[in-house]
């Protein structure tokens, strides 16, 4: 039994590794056919033809595509993602800097989405057609139709500009920036590790608005999914049975029904988390949040393929990890597997 499970996990990992390789190949090819010249980004507008040629060769662009790709994969396997042409730094160093910023933001955003979205969805389903259900519907509708940059700007204007309740753009106030020793790269965590309470407050006041914004979007999705899963469960026979047996409505809904939708819900949450990791670009730009989303976008616009490929690997790896985690959780939550 255990061996079979181990084998299936190994199989999953292998297929995910292949997925990742395919993803890299596609990104690589797109990068090479993209009508943007990365050499120009390095040497600039004023370079002579000779300087241009020198940089072209130094970047290995004179090699055949296949050789370039194989060289790249070889380097990646040795942990070398090359140098970013838009920051001049090794891509791995760049990512080590930007990824924790995104991870922190996406985690808090998902947390907010789950903590508020799941109960909202459950209550909306239990009191179908009631006030909370209506509210949930409006919340979801607004979440789907309102452009995130607009909400972000409004949020900044109101909560930072007018009320002064939260910190402004950026991850920290200037007094705290770079003051807490970098351990995980996540400022909230690092300031707790350092026991620096004011730094934590400062970081929290900066992250709460963008995280709420992302949380709102994931809430809209999670609550809607929760509601429809719940409705499906509530029409099942075992619920009627439970009610007939005299179980309290609270126990029926929160224990039995919710327990049964836990598995699909995990997938929904994992998906939502994954999309926050890769898709919070606009939020990052509005809030001057130095994260992975804006890093990849900037790389794409300047033809900085090492940055784009490196970022893609990380996002891809995140999905792999999330998939594995939800897989494991499945087994853990699925009553049939115990």
């Amino acid at each position, binding site marked *: 039994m255990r061996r079979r499970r181990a084998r299936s996990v190994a199989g999953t990992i292998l297929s995910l590794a292949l997925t990742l390789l395919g993803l890299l190949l596609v990104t690589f090819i797109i990068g090479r056919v993209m*009508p*943007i*010249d990365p050499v*120009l*980004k*390095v*040497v*600039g*507008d*004023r*370079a*002579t033809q000779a*300087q*241009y040629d*020198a940089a072209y060769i130094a970047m290995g662009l004179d090699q055949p595509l296949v050789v370039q790709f194989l060289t790249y994969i070889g380097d990646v396997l040795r942990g070398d993602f090359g140098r970013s*042409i*838009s*920051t*001049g*730094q090794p891509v791995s160093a*760049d990512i080590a*800097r930007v990824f924790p910023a995104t991870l922190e933001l996406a985690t808090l955003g998902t947390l907010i989405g789950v*903590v508020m979205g799941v*109960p909202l969805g459950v209550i909306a389903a239990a009191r179908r057609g009631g006030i909370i259900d209506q509210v949930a519907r409006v919340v979801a509708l607004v979440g789907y139709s309102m452009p995130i940059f607009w909400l972000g*700007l409004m949020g*900044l*204007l109101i909560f*930072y*500009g007018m009320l*002064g*309740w*939260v*910190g*402004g*753009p*950026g991850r920290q*106030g*200037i*007094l*705290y*920036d*770079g003051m807490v020793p970098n351990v995980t790269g996540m400022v909230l965590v690092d300031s707790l590790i350092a026991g620096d309470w*004011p730094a934590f*407050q*400062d970081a*929290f*006041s*900066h992250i*709460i608005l963008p995280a709420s914004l992302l949380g709102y979007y994931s809430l809209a999705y999670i609550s809607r999914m929760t509601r429809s899963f719940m409705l499906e469960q509530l029409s099942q026979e075992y619920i009627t049975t439970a009610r007939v047996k005299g179980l309290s409505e609270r126990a029926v809904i929160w224990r039995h029904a919710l327990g049964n939708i836990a598995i699909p819900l995990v997938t929904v949450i994992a998906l939502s988390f994954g999309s926050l990791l890769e898709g919070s670009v606009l939020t990052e*730009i*509005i*809030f*001057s949040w*130095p994260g992975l989303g*804006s*890093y990849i976008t*900037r790389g794409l*616009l*300047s*033809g900085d393929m090492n940055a784009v490929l490196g970022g893609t690997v990380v996002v891809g790896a995140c999905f792999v990890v999330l998939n594995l985690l939800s897989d494991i959780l499945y087994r853990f939550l699925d009553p049939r597997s115990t």
Partner: protein
Amino acid sequence: MTFHLTSRAVLLASALAFAPAAFAETPADTLVVAHTIDDIISLDPAQSFEFSGNDVNNNTYDRLVDFDPLDPEAGFQPSLAESWEVSEDGLSITFTLREDATFHSGNPVRAQDAAWSLQRAVKLDKTPAFILTQFGFTAENVDQMITFEGNTLTLTMDKPYAPSFVLNCLTANIASVVDMETVMANEADGDLGNGWLNTNEAGSGAYVLAAWRPNEQVQLTAYEDYWQGAPTMKRVIVRNVAESSAQRLLLEQGDIDVARNLTPTDVESIASVEGVTIQDEPRGRILYMGLNQKDELLSNPAVVEAMKHLVDYEGITSSFLKGQFVTHQSFLPRGYLGALDETPWTYDIEKARQILTDAGIEGGTITTRVRDLREYIDVAQTLQAAMGQVGLTLEIEQMTGAQVLDAYRAREVPIFLGEWGPDYSDPNTNAATFAYNPDNSDEAAAVGLLAWRNAYEVPAEMNEATVAATLEQDTDTRAAMYQDIQRQYQAEAPIVPLFQRIEQVGMGDGVQNWWSGGAISSVMYRQVTKGE
């Protein structure tokens, strides 16, 4: 249970959010600037050629000669060089260096360091190297052409260039003096320390580079032993804030002192806010229209002439480019030696139509490529409407900046709309790109020259005049020569300067003596103070 925990968490969260501690004003001895600084690729002065990189270099390094940020009009002033003397044949200049300057490492600044820095820049041959190599230096000869003895340094050139030309070039970033011993201690694979200097600094400037996080932040701290006295601002923090509206909010809240990328809309709405001022500073960038001579229609002189009257100069600068550009119709920006302030062209549809009719041109279509920046697109659309009125059709393709540049360097943009920033503070910088093109063939691949990119075959006498102006020893005569070239250029060239950039800097009330670098240089922080 779940609910209980959640409500406590929410309470805790809101208590934190209300905590006022984090939102104090910036500290009195710290200058906080919001700017888009995502263009920094390298901090090595021999390589850095982007605006933000130069901004950092200008504060961490000194040069032999420099501008006085409190009196930029005065032009180049002694800096690490106390004085200089031009040899009688005009071929060499000998600089005497001051002896009280030290690098951030504590090493004294010697003539040897200065000579080595210039030699190094020539040998590395990165993009900005031409600013030095135009005086005849090559990797092979530079050790003989740039020499030192004691505290003097001698530059020997291949021609007797105008001293103002040479000295102006020595104010450029690439002429920064680096600490030879520190750099060579960090050399790898014979790179003359280039790899290390990309992310580190070894200068003698007023500020020490404390931290650089790409796309995030640059932190500078005052160099207390600076030979011109330690600067008042002990810390300078430049934060990358991409959005104008975010910069505006930060400034209104007092979280930053200076906002450098405000849109006209934000400038307008912030101007009335108490405690905030807007400072206008003309920059060196020229927004121009290049009419590619490879295009059959555009190579007709009548079309070129007509196009100059199809730009709504006043309409554009008073509407969407409001406050950020002024009309300027010659290739030398105001602030440069010999810059011409005359504006011979006016927006005149009738005149344009007449010119075209006289030449027997009855319409035509031009497809062009424009960078997807709001202001360029707006200018292009205004032009499109005006051209439509005289029977010319302009089709606009939008592209990213990198794509347009690529096509432009391949001479494939029929009507180019974009900006050109001077490379150094001498008039030759723009004369040599706008009005000089000795070989217009495709094979010449003179991609650095705007004239070549637009396939403009510069007349022989204009080429000669541009070269002659670099050799004229008398500065007033030299200025007059550039004015002549600009007048001739206005009369016939198919590259049409339209506007000059104005930087509108938003500042907290207390900030004094801010200087973004004007038309000729980069930002300087050492003279900045913050009052109450």
